[in-house]
């Protein structure tokens, strides 16, 4: 009897975190036309930043949040200016961003070693909801992710900047003719995407162990979400996150946890085979 509720609650929590993390990756592809293979390392970088600020510098939470988000925004803008701008829609893009990820990973190992670091939960303990024990930290992370997704929706669909983002995603040249500066919009999107990876790391780091390779499974996940939901599709990415999140929990709880990620990846192959443009086959519009 408890199993459907376990799948429901854990599926909800997992999907919201997946969505928050993957939407940034999807936006970058939709707007800047960049498959950012370094996206996982931004998540890792933010997690190490959180670790350093919380456990080494002993900064309070609000200051940590501000510093991490500001750093990730700065990182996103610099990343766009130095590298991404010159690589848009080029074949070398994946290889270059992949190499950036590897170099950043080696740098992290050089600074922090391969020690599996851990930080304390901001909301320790757990609460029972309808007989299911939920970790307070995960509930807080899910609620924050939900609120941020709402803010993101508002930003993309209800603001001038959102309109500019969608315009550049549709047709860069036409947007330019309408007086939109695509460079500025793309830099903003990269900053937004990196800060989303940073916030996801802020929410997830206390639940997990911080290691230099922690970003790779997240990158795989983002790829999966984007392929399933359609490249650059905001709502598609959110729906795909829920499909993958719930499938993951279903297989973990009812079949075998060893197969959960493999099943998610098999689903992507199936979608790519049946609908190469993703389940929804549209982009930001």
């Amino acid at each position, binding site marked *: 009897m*408890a199993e459907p509720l*376990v799948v429901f609650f*854990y599926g909800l*929590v*997992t999907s919201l975190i997946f969505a928050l993390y993957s939407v940034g990756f999807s936006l970058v592809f939709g707007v800047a036309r960049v498959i950012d293979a370094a996206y996982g390392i931004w998540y890792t970088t933010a997690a190490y930043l959180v670790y350093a600020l919380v456990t080494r510098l002993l900064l309070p939470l609000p200051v940590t949040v501000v510093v991490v988000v500001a750093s990730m925004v700065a990182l996103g803008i610099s990343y766009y200016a130095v590298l991404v701008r010159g690589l848009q829609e080029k074949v070398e893009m994946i290889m270059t961003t992949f190499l950036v990820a590897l170099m950043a990973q080696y740098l992290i*190992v050089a600074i922090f*070693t*391969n*020690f*599996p*670091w*851990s930080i*304390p*939960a901001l909301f*320790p*303990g*757990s*609460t*029972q909801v309808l007989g*299911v*024990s*939920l*970790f*307070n930290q*995960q509930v807080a992370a899910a609620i924050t992710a939900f609120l941020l997704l709402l803010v993101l929706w508002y930003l993309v669909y209800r603001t001038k900047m959102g309109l500019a983002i969608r315009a550049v995603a549709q047709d860069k040249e036409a947007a330019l003719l309408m007086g939109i500066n695509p460079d500025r919009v793309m830099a903003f999107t990269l900053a937004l995407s990196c800060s989303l990876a940073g916030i996801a790391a802020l929410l*997830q780091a206390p*639940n*997990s*162990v911080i*290691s230099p*390779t*922690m970003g*790779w*499974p997240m990158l795989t996940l983002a790829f999966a979400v984007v392929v399933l939901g359609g490249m650059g599709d905001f709502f598609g990415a959110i729906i795909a996150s829920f499909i993958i999140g719930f499938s993951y*929990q279903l297989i*973990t*709880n009812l079949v*075998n*946890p*060893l197969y959960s*990620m493999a099943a998610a990846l098999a689903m992507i192959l199936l979608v790519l085979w049946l609908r190469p443009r993703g389940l929804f086959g549209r982009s930001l519009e």
Partner: protein
Amino acid sequence: MATATSSKPSRKTLYIAVGVVIVIALIAAAVLVVMNPFQQQQKEIVIGLSLPLTNPVGIHARKAAELAVEEINAAGGVRLKDGVYRLRLVAEDTNEMDPLIPVDQGVAAFKRLIEVHGAQVIVGGVRTDVVVAQTQLLSQYKIVYLDIESNQGIVEGKVKDDYQNYKYYFHFFGGGPKSSAGPLIIGFLQRLKDMSAKDPKMPDVSKVALLAENALWTVGLAGRPAGNSTFFKRLADLGFKLVYAELYPTTESDFSSYLAKMKAQCPGVIVFLFSGPPGIIFTKQWQDYDWSPCKKPIVFGPGLLGGFSWFWDQTQGKAQGTIWWPSTVRVQVTPKTVEFIDKFKRRYGETPNTAAIDAYDAIYVLKDALERAGTWQAEELVKALEQTDYVGVMGRIKFSRENHGLDFTYENIYRYFGQWQNGELVPVWESTWPEIKNLLIP
């Protein structure tokens, strides 16, 4: 106009040139004799450390090996047939504690140690699959391999079945035919069950949950599928009931679902087999989990990291009450045990983990065997290692032609089980004790 004949060097010039070459050669020879670099090279034995050098296991093992080499060299080095040799360490990073790293990296590191650094003996080994792959090359290189931390008797078995190819391998950790952790763990669980039957505050330990990482080293104890092993059949014979058994991927980052499924069965003890970072997440989540209406189960972990001093810090004290094997409890197993633990702690500021103890003992066992063999050549060294009967930090280490591994019938730190209590690993049981002592119920 110059002719071809006039452009040839004169005989005098040739004599001068030859003379200059001879003088340079003589000076070079004199310098070489004075500096004697070849003799220096001959007077060194190079030990190759094959370890995950940025992981706590490898870091501690390297530090302990450096300590041992420093002590041996300071005490005059190693006396072989043709003189006194100094020990020198070289190291390569296998990165083997990262589950995403394939065994190839460990094999490449092993080859580099021999081919690039000129290692004459290898000390290292943590992940079983990496060690199995590396030891397939031993007969090719004819080099002795002292395995300090892999947790399976696979290669010890190969020494028996294929002596000529695997005789170079010696094992300083449990998992071999005479050092199986299984009987120790069963003994501990039996005492825990007896205790829980008498104490109403304790959970019902006869109900066992098994959670194991999906790695080669857990195959023997956990079985495949999980729970299908001689170990669990033996537990069933002793009145235990396996109520939950599952494997988790080595990249797992959330145990909520596992805990929910366990809670549905109200186990009294969770046998938790882990050696990687997810163990930290599991321990934190187990402590924070709302187990009502069940009693919080006891976590007992045969694994590598739980008994490490930094595990307490990384779990922010949530490891309180967890029980681990192996544990570097501060117990005078031999006259050298506490002395080494204190020495290591003074120098590096941390309690040494088991890899440190094994590496330290391995270097001293090697020194002992080198002196008996009178050479570092593998064929002779293997024979000398097979005569080892050495009392080290961990306990008594006795090898023979038939047994290249530890023997837990002799005193050994691996016979102890430790529980985290307020930042200290407190010994709660040793395999000869009739009952558990000083147990903290979580």
